[in-house]
């Protein structure tokens, strides 16, 4: 049995001017100890995917269709009290915005102790000892002093690490990490990644890593999902996707990296921008920006099918994926 199994997950937002679809039939599985990366355009629905898994979508957003099974249990229709027990305890999310987790009027110590005591029978002193240990694990220097500080007194990267420490407090089985290292410098990022990697390997924690850093995805994950306009457009082993991307969007993404262009030169940006949710084209969502689009791309949304070593949603993948594009080497 897989740790997590998501089928045809569809999320909508009820808006003044009608419903918009933020997630469109998203399906994937995650085994215990497996590390899955989610990358994709800003606004593609990566964070919304995380919120849905945690059952934290708030109005006007709602799950319109699909199932989410966590250890064989359907959690879409779980009563609030049951879900609260799973959340934080067995699955936990590191939010993109640290202030979702952190309460500005409580000290770091108060919040960590409270979180622990909500789920475990511990004295304040015991809880503080655990808090200090977890802060040390995420490389916060002088953790004893930091416990007495308020979130606004800490640097962006420290806040991010404290959120990670809070998530680790209860030893969850599934961690959803939404851009967990964006505010960290590379040396600490490397240490935090090693810590997460270690948790996956020794404690068999399942990890969903949402990030735009392809280097991090490449070093951290076994499999990757590429999202665009609410859909999965490419899925497969991380190595295959990085070395030999099939979808024109994924190819464009890798080509846009600064390493692919000489310093100071214009970067190879993908022309145009992702359609907003109120204006998704009726065919392939990437079609308006795609150099390979044909009539069928304009009229029919592509199904996700197996191609080469990955799964990809593109009508033209056979034609397009002839020889390697130039400038692919790092």
């Amino acid at each position: 049995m897989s740790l997590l199994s998501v089928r045809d997950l569809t999320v909508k937002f009820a808006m003044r001017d009608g419903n918009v679809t933020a997630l469109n039939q998203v399906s994937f599985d995650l085994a215990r100890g497996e590390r899955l990366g989610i990358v994709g355009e800003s606004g593609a629905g990566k964070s919304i995917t995380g919120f849905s898994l945690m059952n934290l979508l708030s109005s006007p957003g709602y799950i319109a269709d699909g199932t989410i099974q966590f250890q064989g249990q359907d959690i879409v229709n779980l009563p609030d009290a049951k879900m609260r027990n799973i959340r934080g305890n067995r699955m936990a999310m590191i939010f993109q915005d640290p202030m979702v987790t952190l309460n500005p009027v409580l000290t770091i110590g108060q919040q960590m102790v409270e979180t622990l005591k909500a789920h475990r029978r511990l004295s304040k002193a015991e809880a503080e000892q655990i808090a200090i240990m977890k802060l040390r694990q995420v490389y916060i220097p002088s953790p004893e002093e930091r416990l007495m500080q308020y979130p606004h007194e800490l640097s962006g990267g420290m806040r991010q690490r404290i959120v990670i420490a809070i998530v680790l407090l209860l030893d969850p089985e599934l961690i959803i990490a939404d851009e967990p290292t964006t505010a960290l410098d590379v040396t600490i990022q490397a240490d935090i990644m090693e810590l997460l990697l270690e948790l996956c390997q020794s404690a068999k924690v399942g990890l969903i890593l949402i990030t735009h850093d392809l280097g991090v995805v490449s070093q951290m994950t076994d499999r990757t999902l590429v999202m665009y306009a609410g859909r999965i457009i490419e899925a497969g082993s991380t190595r295959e996707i990085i070395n030999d991307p099939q979808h024109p969007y994924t190819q464009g993404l890798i080509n846009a990296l600064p390493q692919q262009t000489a310093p100071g030169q214009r970067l190879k940006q993908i022309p145009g921008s992702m359609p907003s949710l109120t204006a998704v084209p009726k065919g392939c969502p990437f079609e308006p920006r795609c150099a390979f689009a044909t009539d069928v791309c304009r009229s029919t949304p592509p199904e996700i099918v197996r191609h080469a070593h990955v799964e990809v949603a593109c009508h033209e993948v056979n034609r397009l994926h002839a020889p390697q594009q130039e400038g692919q080497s790092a």
Partner: protein
Amino acid sequence: MTMSANETPLLELRKLEKRFELDQGFLETLKFRGGKFVREKRDVHAVNGVSLQVTRGEALCVVGESGCGKSTVARLIAGLLTPSSGEIHYEGTRIDDKSRHDLLPMRKKMQMIFQNPYASLNPRMTIKQALEEPVRYHNRALSRGDVEAKVADVMQSVGVDPSWMGRYPHEFSGGQRQRIAIARALTVDPEFIIADEPISALDVSIQAQVLNLMLEAKEQRGLTYLFITHDLSVVQHFGTRVAVLYLGSVCELSDTATLFENPKHPYTKALLSAVPQLKDDKPSHIRLKGEIPTPINLPQGCPFQSRCAHANARCMSETPRPLTQPDGSMVACHGVEEDRLLS
């Protein structure tokens, strides 16, 4: 990048220091020492004697460990914090001792983009209202329709659908919000932008779009940047010079190409080695061992000493001063000075 001696730098920081009080309440400062109560105040030494010059038209990138004082430097320059000591000069005029009111004309020339996209937009203002304000301010003669067209242009330039201008920030994703904040800073037509990790929240293709936009503004309007980031491939691409900060002081300052070809400070070397690579899956970075120092108790001697593989007795006791190297870079390291670091 050379700086002619007679040209006034756009921005100059002189021995800038910032300390934050750690213990605010009276009771918290009481400590039991040697059998009696004493009052002991502790400070966070966030910035410790930073001296820097920014020349017109350059993009000075600031990199360094989380918590080393990058945002604090940015906030000091933007006038959001007052230095504990030291001076800030803008176009030859001292600005750190001026009142908010006296700084008003300066504020238009200088724009700041904040680190957290969730904090940079007013949650109660629609995107249209947020963008209209600066457009109006600078073109008082524009008609309503023209203002709206300009706002639509601005949104388009950062890849956000203009038909969403009536919506509130919470209806946008993190990256979309950050792009709007960047667009807002650019509409004011500033001459100097302080950008605190402006693109860390953006995916690669949007990063490319925003970096291209910022590069264009630099080339066409001669915009000057102080650019804080931890993404070294962005530094390499965008920066003309790089300042590496460690525990509130500059440990290496160099032009970008030199820094990447020939990093000298042991911390800079560790930093460059830790960049995750796309194609190899075996991380091979220089692990920094030892106790991570804290700005609450600054270490004696070199700030990097506790994690440095090359530290000796002198490093433990004497703080290294920044010294100019033959290739023009500045490095604060006894090991480099004594030429005893083998790379």
